[in-house]
């Protein structure tokens, strides 16, 4: 189907066009890039509507590499899982492009920015559309390059440039693991095509240790891209990039690539229980450590960065429990609320004239009401409070852990569940803390904060809306839709009242932060001073 080719070609053309047109008329760069991204979204939507139930579309773009037994067409493959990822990537991506028009308006290098941003869309879409592992790897390394270029976008600052290099190198460590996993698979099955691998694995009788080794190799790749221990060190530094980049690449899309990879290879990971147990432990540790680190940050973007690391840990926990569709569910809801949070933070930073320290904020609720309210909705969503979207995906993760059949995990599932719940509490706490410190109380800075222009506000409202309802729609039908690709368990329907009662952990965290940082604000101050 030709539309699949256009999905990736529009951003590629947009990348060159926005730079060349922007060189002549700078303000046009952003609009060209946004249009390219929206056109890609439209093509995704067309492919989505044309997608047959329980089926897939595919389009071989060209005959890429063909040596001896190694046949690697540049194959684009579009099934339910791809559709979900593509809709999120191009949908959220388009909103962030629109937002960037205003955010980057003052920057004289904005054409270069939009060229990189569109190039990122191109790579990310190759990543999710790739029909075999090497094509996926093209996107995989491509997003790493764009991440490198965008983190170091303001390259005159040497520490920003160093942060970009760090991101690329740490990702490369993961990529080496990815390559190794591919080599194992190729020599066992003689193919790297997803469909062929699935049938190859179904027909083979190999010891679990083989799949465990391959699974661990591939997870090293996933851990690099998706910032899991010990390869998470690059993501906090990556906040050196412009804030829309943090929202798009380092929150909503690229960092979820590792989760997508595990979901894509679910048929392989299902046979690797030991690897999954390791994934679970690492994911849990990552989620917890990042959450505690987020508690202590004053830079609003750093709070969100550690929060992203922590939420990625939750996604991997779901995958490790075999509930791949739940991990994708959380990818989707997280894309909504975390993109909204980052864009909200960007709006604050923009409004406060490049201030990122929350100690110099406060009281912005009255000065930037739309930013504040959309931020609050997203905070409550990530805190896991029903009926907002985060509750449904996070609750599904905790339920999936409880029902895990992995015999390496089952003896310890109580501890895992408790630790995950504690982390969920911490999430609610530090996110509410960031809201209170930024928007409530008195303004402690010296700038003249103002609400942002419409190009920035509209994406905030749309994303906050999605963060609010994303649990019902598309969340409600997601498991059914994904069932053609991923194993989906039974769905426990619960009433709204039950749901709200189940969100006590989040409510507790939010209330605790609210009380501690408004009424009893001397206590955190004392702790910090000590």
């Amino acid at each position: 189907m030709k539309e699949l080719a256009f999905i990736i070609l529009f951003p590629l053309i947009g990348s060159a066009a926005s730079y060349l047109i922007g060189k002549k008329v700078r303000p046009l760069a952003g609009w060209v890039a946004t249009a390219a991204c929206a056109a890609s979204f439209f093509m995704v939507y067309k492919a989505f509507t044309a997608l047959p139930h329980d089926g897939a579309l595919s389009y071989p773009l060209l005959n890429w590499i063909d040596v001896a037994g190694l046949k690697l067409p540049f194959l684009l493959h579009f099934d339910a899982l791809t559709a979900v990822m593509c809709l999120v990537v191009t949908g959220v991506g388009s909103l962030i492009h629109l937002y960037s028009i205003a955010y980057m308006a003052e920057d004289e290098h904005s054409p270069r920015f939009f060229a990189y941003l569109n190039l990122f869309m191109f790579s990310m879409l190759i990543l999710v559309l790739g029909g075999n592992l090497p094509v996926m790897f093209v996107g995989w390394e491509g997003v790493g390059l764009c991440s490198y270029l965008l983190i170091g976008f303001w390259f005159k600052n040497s520490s920003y440039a160093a942060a970009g290099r760090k991101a690329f190198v740490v990702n490369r460590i993961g990529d080496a693991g990815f390559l190794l996993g591919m080599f194992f698979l190729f020599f066992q099955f003689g193919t790297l095509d997803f469909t062929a691998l699935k049938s190859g694995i179904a027909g083979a009788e190999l010891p679990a240790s083989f799949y465990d080794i391959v699974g661990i190799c591939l997870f090293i790749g996933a851990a690099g891209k998706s910032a899991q221990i010990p390869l998470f060190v690059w993501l906090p530094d990556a906040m050196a990039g412009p804030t829309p980049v943090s929202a798009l690449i380092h929150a909503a899309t690229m960092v979820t690539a590792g989760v997508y990879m595990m979901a894509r290879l679910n048929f392989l990971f299902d046979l690797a229980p030991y690897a999954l147990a390791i994934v679970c432990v690492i994911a849990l540790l990552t989620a917890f450590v990042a959450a505690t680190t987020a508690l202590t940050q004053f830079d609003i973007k750093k709070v969100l960065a550690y929060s992203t690391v922590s939420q990625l840990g939750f996604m991997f926990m779901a995958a490790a429990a075999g509930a791949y569709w739940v991990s994708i569910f959380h990818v989707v809801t997280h894309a909504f609320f975390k993109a909204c949070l980052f864009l909200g933070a960007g709006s604050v930073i923009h409004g406060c004239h490049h201030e990122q320290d929350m100690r110099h904020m406060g009281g912005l609720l009255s000065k930037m009401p739309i930013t504040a309210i959309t931020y609050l909705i997203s905070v409550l969503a990530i805190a896991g409070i029903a009926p907002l979207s985060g509750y449904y995906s996070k609750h599904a993760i905790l339920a999936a852990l409880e029902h895990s059949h992995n015999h390496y995990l089952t003896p310890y599932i109580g501890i895992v569940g408790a630790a995950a719940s504690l982390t969920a509490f911490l999430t609610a706490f530090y996110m509410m803390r960031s809201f209170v410190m930024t928007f409530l109380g008195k303004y402690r800075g010296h700038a003249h904060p103002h609400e942002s222009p419409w190009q920035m506000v509209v994406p905030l409202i749309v994303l906050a809306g999605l963060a609010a309802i994303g649990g019902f729609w598309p969340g409600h039908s997601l498991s059914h839709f994904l069932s053609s690709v991923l194993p989906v368990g039974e769905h426990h329907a619960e009433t709204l009242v039950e749901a709200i009662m189940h969100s006590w952990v989040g409510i507790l965290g939010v209330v605790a932060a609210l009380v501690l940082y408004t009424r009893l604000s001397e206590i955190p101050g004392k702790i910090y001073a000590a």
Partner: protein
Amino acid sequence: MSEHLLSVLIFLPLLGAVLLYILPFFSAKSDGHGDIARWFAFGITTLTFVISLLKLLFEFDGTNVNPQFIEDIPWIAQYGISYNLGVDGISIYLVLLTTFLMPIIVLASHSVHSRVRAYLANMLVLETAMLGTLLALDVFLFYVFWELMLAPMYFIIGIWGGRRKIYATLKFVLYTVVGSLLMLVAIIYVVWQHQQQTGELTFLLSSLVSNTTFTMTEELWLFAAFALAFGIKVPIFPFHTWLPDAHVEAPTGGSVVLAGVLLKMGLYGFIRFAYPLFPRGAEEFAPYLAALAVIGIIYGALVAWAQEDIKKLVAYSSVSHLGYCVLGFVAFNTISATGSIVQMINHGISTGALFLLVGVLYDRRHTRAISEYGGLASQVPVFAFLFLVFTLSSIALPLTNGFVGEFLILLGSFERFPLLTLAALSGVILGAVYMLTLYMRTMFGEIDVEKNGKLKDVNAIELAAFAPLFVVVFWIGIYPKPLIDAIEPTVASYIEQVDQRSQRLLALEEQALSSRIALSYLPSSAAGGQ
């Protein structure tokens, strides 16, 4: 022309060199700055390239695994020496690489200001020697061209080189001559053996390969002699120390031709001579060669990382990259060996381009110290863009040429040498480390050296030199099919033939052994019979 096509290609540059010397309008009086000579040399090399493209490449039959365009003329008939030329899938793109790079090297000669005519004449003679080496199918003829490569390179570094040019030249010549002499001895031994066994004196490679047999001991010694000669030329660790010195002291064009073509000659020698003649010796040595290759990959990368001189860094990166080529070839399956040849082409393109880039900086600032640069991206954006593209090609980012070769090499080698391939994967990471560090230190940050504030971006002639390299980077990265289609069938049949000869030699030796054993029993059994 078509029946003497290869001779035309080989001797056209030599004719150009002669004309440069005898025609009056190239004399110092009428051509003071050497501009006419430069355009003449550019014309000759371009013509050679166009002929090789239209007449050789476009009429080359990729499915035919035997040498094509054969020329066979008796030369010194009483010694069985013939003028025998031919091109096959292994050499075709190396020939094209040579003819492709030469016009670019001539363009880069604009930075040579003294004795331009002599410099260009040397370059043209070098082209003749290189093409002859690649196309010769007679061992004597090969040796003549092989030695002929040394002389112009000696002059190019020795006359137009940098401060330590005498030291570098001496080292380069000593290393190469030691290797060559060993090879000469081995060649004479092989030819003598052939005469002993068949009664016919010939230097024709195909007869030597198909009609001569060696014992295992002979094979080991002869292969070792060839391996040393070729190993120095590659260079394989630990025989690499001449390379950084030669590179650093050579003028830009010299470095490009050294990295682009001359370094390939060592491995080409392995492929064309050492392996077919002594397959069992090769088999014995393969693991050691692979280990040395991997040491070279890692060691070269680490040393490159530590360099303060840009040119030295790129030179050590060559040691690392050539390690991949050697590893891929000695792993000896169709995928890895095809990858190895593809990577030889790639290395010529990307490292050649990197040396040209260093040359651009050196022409302007007369220093190669990394610390003398910094923040150039804002001053010379086009240069920075080109540098980025060739850096990415060098670190094998997918969709650039480097990835295709490196991926095939690693994937193919994994089957034969899994642990060594695992170690070689660290080169994938280290490559990103040293190249991105170089890029960061020279291109990013603020301009901290005052002189760089007036640096001029690439001019039209430089751009014309980079443009074809730029195109090839993406051509091979995105659509390597024509390249692979020309190389792969020959490689597959070549591997089969080498394996067959290996088995035949083994069978012969076993037969000889058993008949000797039988012979020693013969008298008694004969006596028993009577």
